[in-house]
């Protein structure tokens, strides 16, 4: 474990509780209703939102009258280590998409979008760990860009555990070392998604969860600033238009 945490520093020089540089750009794809390009350090993802638009009648049911569909794609060029070509029916990608969908189900105000479908596509452009949390963050930004109503700002972070210290925002090297890890997505204080990456001792769960929800609040705050900066340009002149 010395190569994970040496003299209180991680392999890329960060402190244990330090998040990688977050950079976000909204509205990059004019053809989509909403889009966001998000960087967690070297992880780089593009999320686009299409809709809310008319859903096909076959997709609707009396219980579920707003369709939220997530497509997650990680092309072979995204990762240095894993160059496998994954098809459309790939189970790992489908699982990631499902996890994002579940987290979003708790935050999008579906009752305002009856008979509509919101399609969300996530493309991993560069992969360097914490893709699930980066994807959730990117989707959340893209939904805001599309003007979709949500309960709050959904933010996610992946934390690991090493030498009694929680590591925030694991990169791919740390993830491949098989650390016990936890991905958490929060809206305010409310945890909407939590998944454990490797075997995690039950005693470690509470400190990790606390650390992760604090980190989520920080991520939400910082990304919120980026959204506001973007909106300032867009809203400034629309005051009366």
């Amino acid at each position, binding site marked *: 474990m010395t190569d994970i945490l040496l003299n209180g520093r991680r392999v890329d020089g960060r402190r244990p509780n330090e998040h990688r540089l977050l950079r976000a750009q909204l509205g990059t794809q004019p053809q989509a209703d909403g889009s966001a390009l998000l960087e967690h350090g070297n992880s780089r993802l593009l999320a686009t939102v299409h809709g809310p638009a008319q859903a096909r009648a076959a997709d609707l049911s009396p219980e579920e009258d707003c369709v939220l569909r997530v497509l997650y794609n990680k092309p072979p060029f995204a990762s240095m280590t894993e160059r496998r070509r994954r098809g459309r029916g790939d189970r790992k990608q489908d699982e990631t998409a499902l996890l994002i969908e579940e987290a979003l189900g708790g935050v999008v105000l579906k009752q305002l979008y009856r008979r509509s479908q919101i399609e969300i596509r996530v493309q991993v452009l560069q992969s360097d760990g914490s893709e699930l949390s980066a994807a959730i963050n990117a989707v959340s930004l893209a939904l805001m*860009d599309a*003007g979709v*109503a949500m309960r709050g700002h959904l933010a996610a972070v992946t934390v690991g555990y090493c030498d009694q210290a929680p590591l925030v925002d694991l990169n791919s090297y740390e993830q491949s070392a098989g650390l016990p890890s936890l991905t958490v997505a929060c809206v*305010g204080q409310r945890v909407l998604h939590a998944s454990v990456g490797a075997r995690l001792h039950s005693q470690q769960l509470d400190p990790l969860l606390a650390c992760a929800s604090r980190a989520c609040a920080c991520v939400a705050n910082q990304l919120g600033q980026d959204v506001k900066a973007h909106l300032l340009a867009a809203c400034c002149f629309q005051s009366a238009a």
Partner: protein
Amino acid sequence: MQSAPDDEELDSLSIRLVGLDENYPVRLNWNDLGVQFSKQSIVVPGDRLTRSREFIPGHGTLRRTVEAGSGNASFAAGRRQKQNDDNAEDNDEDDEDEDEEGAWELAASVAGRQHVVNKLLCVLPGRSRYAGEIGDVVVGRVQEVASRRWRIDANARLQATLHLSGVLLPGEDLRRKSEEDERAMRAVLAEGDLVSAEVQSVQADGSLVLHTRNARYGRLGQGTLVRVPPALIKRSKTHFHSLPCGVTLVLGMNGYCWCGPTPGQSDVREPLASPADRSEVARVRACVRLLAVNHVPLYDTSVMQAYEVARESPVALLSRPDEQLRVARLVAEQLLTAEVGEAQPGGGGFGLHSGDLISGGALSAVH
């Protein structure tokens, strides 16, 4: 990290746009023009708007109860203002009685600008689908010909409907439509046709019903469509503009703008527009687009000013971000000075409150 590119680097500009270089000024920044805009009024979902109970929750807001101590909040979507819209209340997790006792607050549910009208508090998103209002002029594309109706894509959340009874058949008075009319529906509007129409009503589920029962409305012939965010279209008395350059411009409130040669709406079998006409149409289209990407409100004055500024440039140049910025900045400055000249306190305009409008170095920063 990256320095601003030199002139010879401008060709790679389109690549830079997708990159994360926010320092490079390819898009108009209104703050550079001295527009004072309160940052406090920009909110993201979950931001608290107010704890005061005197406000009525409008679009883009939600009520959430705050349980003391636990920090857990439960939510109720903001009541929408339309009478026929009871969507927000009926399937939410907490009921009205609890709200009266517990402390609740109003929070934003969309990212956008806070807006207060009397007691109504709402948040207007910067970009969203078109939420129709009765009487709006819209431009739509026919997606499907169904029984006695057309299904139309009008950039709304749901498909819009144009009933056969809502169209004015060419050369006829309004009359009951027969079965033969029903069979000949594709002769009036086929799949893929563009149509200008007016919103007749908004259904309970939010879908729009359109009508073209006026000679102004109907099928749009030769021309091009530009799609812009609906919030940029300024509501005005007329949305059909015949510009002096021989181009007809329809600024649909739904964000679909159509530009075509002026006599273009009459007949299917009209001769093809001349290359000169078409290049004028392309220039107007480019002007609408460059204003939209720089968040300039779209109405006849702004488009005409952009046209005047861009008249000398080749049309192809108008798709370059630097040229778009140059034109949009000049238009914005003209609009701002015109606004100051009118000096309407609090009424319409762009909601500006600053007299000091144009900063000194604004122009030199571009060229």
